[in-house]
């Protein structure tokens, strides 16, 4: 496979053809904030936190879904980007009801970690405080829409790792939300195998093990990565 040469933040580097800017940046030791990206699952560019500037393009592009190209000049940490990232993050917080202090994911939440790392000490937008409910019908897991950021990691894990296809996104705009099967209570979704991969994939406290209390949702992301790698390398197939 041909290699492409490009610069990221004035750093000259080469990356494999077909690699994303996010992968190239990571290999070069440059960290980008991400939320909808999850190792082992394909990217959709939903959260817009990994936006970068590419010379010659007026629009900002998500690093997770943009492929490297020869001679690309990329900036990942400009004043403009910092401004937008902070704004995006604040909008995520303002959109639903994120109350870290009493959340099952407190201390283990990617949204919370991003807020700390990007120095978000307050939200400039008015909180929408929507009235979302909690789906507590499943035997093992709960889904709290109040804490959902619509990253769709659970949907992708469900369809493309487990292959069950239980989870989906319904509605548009502020009404968009995660559903199970044909918008049935999770406990009544026949396709769900109760594998828990969606719970492992969730970056916030939106999906949780029932009975978990404050800060108890510690996830092991490597399990998903392990499953995907094993499948790609056919580690489970013997002659």
């Amino acid at each position: 496979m041909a290699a492409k040469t490009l610069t990221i933040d004035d750093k000259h580097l080469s990356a494999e053809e077909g690699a994303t800017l996010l992968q190239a940046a990571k290999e070069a030791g440059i960290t980008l904030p991400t939320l909808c990206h999850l190792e082992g699952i394909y990217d959709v560019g939903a959260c817009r936190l990994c936006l970068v500037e590419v010379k010659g393009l007026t629009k900002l592009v998500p690093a997770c879904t943009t492929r490297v190209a020869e001679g690309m000049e990329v900036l990942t940490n400009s004043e403009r980007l910092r401004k937008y990232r902070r704004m995006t993050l604040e909008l995520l917080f303002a959109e639903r009801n994120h109350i870290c202090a009493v959340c099952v994911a407190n201390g283990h939440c990617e949204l919370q970690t991003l807020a700390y790392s990007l120095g978000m000490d307050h939200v400039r937008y008015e909180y929408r405080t929507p009235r979302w409910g909690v789906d507590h019908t499943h035997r093992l897991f709960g889904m709290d829409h109040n804490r959902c950021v619509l990253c769709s990691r659970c949907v992708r894990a469900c369809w493309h790792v487990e292959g069950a296809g239980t989870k989906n996104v319904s509605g548009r705009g502020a009404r968009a939300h995660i559903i199970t099967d044909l918008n049935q209570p999770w406990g009544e979704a026949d396709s769900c195998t109760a594998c828990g991969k969606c719970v492992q994939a969730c970056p916030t406290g939106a999906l949780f093990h029932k009975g978990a209390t404050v800060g108890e949702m510690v996830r092991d992301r490597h399990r998903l990565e392990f499953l995907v790698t094993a499948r790609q390398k056919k580690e489970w197939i013997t002659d």
Partner: protein
Amino acid sequence: MATRILIDPVTRIEGHAKISLFVDDAGNVEDAEFHVVEFRGFEKFCEGRPYTEMPGITPRICGICPVSHLLASAKAGDAIMAVEIPPAADKLRRLMNLAQFVQSHALSFFHLSAPDFLLGWDTPQAQRNVFGLIGANKALARAGIRLRQFGQEIIEILGGRKIHPAWAVPGGVRSPLTPEGRERIRHWLPEAQATVQTAFTLWEQTLATHQRELETFGNFPSLFMGLVAEDGTWEHHGGKLRFTDSHGRVIADQIDAGNYPTVIGESVQTSSYLKSPYYLPLGFPAGIYRVGPLARLNVCSQMGVPRADAELVKFKRLGQGAVTSSFLYHYARLIEILAALEYIERYLEDDELLSSELRADAGINNRRGVGVSEAPRGTLFHDYTVDRNGLLQKVNLIVATGQNNLAMNRTVAQIARHYIQGRGKIPEQLLNRVEHGIRCYDPCLSCSTHAVGRMPLHVQLIGPDHTILDEVTRGDDAPLPAAAPGAAT
């Protein structure tokens, strides 16, 4: 022409409140009302949440007694799951509650109330606070602060943090006592015990010189309620409810937490966000009862630990049948600190607290669960109703301060009647006595304290037509008036 004197806010209590005094034409106080002006809304916004989250949410009601809500909430969860929690978990919860008693009672006694009776009622208000106490007796103030810290440290050792530990859960607790934690507590215990002895000595001197306060600070017949063990021993976390009357007679006993609606009614008044519970068989307001240290010591027959039992005998001699003066809440608080330290000492010898079998697991087996636990201020009820999936449909919280609401009204009225008679101008020192009537109960209005600094005071003179005839405001930022009174008639 009747007038109303307003004390707003009441200071050196935990939260925001004001007092109205209604004065008749002759200048005598006719009645008094204690208003809690905070609105919190926990009962409403918790609806729809999983019950398992409640021990994480409800402690946020308060930064002083989060442990009380934590434990009552976890117990309500136990009841919904219909489980008996592992014995080690029960002991650990008790240890944390005892630590909570120590820290909260120390705060009430040393930081909030002692400046009044140790420094003197007529001390200039700028000094009548914990800093004044430090100036007058540094060693004592330090010991008091350290005693509170001791309780806080135990809470941190068990729950990982001093305030709002999310440690107790439906079915048990999340982590045990560690051997290192146990040694830290053991090392500090003698100092805490010595501080309580000092406090008892001070209290004896105080009592000898405060007979007038003893007679007039909320000294009236009422019922008393608290948890007791089956044999009548003082309880703080387990046990069942007992009511006694002002003669010390038991009028209701061994009532299960879940049956509280058969003995407690709740009245809502327009003048306050605080509900006013009453003893149902006697009706409102005749069913007035008190909770908290004074009530717990009145309803129990023994403390169950030797040194506190010896003090309890002395305490009971101060009343006939029951001890009815609310000024003695302070004394009762000291006895409870002593008892808590003795129980903590016992737990240090119990290896079961190091156990790792701490959490029972179960689904939804009851649609309703009531958790009752003694908070430092009095009996606390958490009453949850859930749907079949464990989401809350109804939440009812009955807090200690609410149960003392009627008694606090009567106390401030009694003090005001005694000290405020036919005066044109009312000195601030007299109004402070009225406020102290509230401090006796150590009410927890679930917010920050005003323990430090100048007393922000807002007094209005309101005529029968609701016009403000006179008004004096002294806030945190306003300069202190040169002459003493910050009050007007």
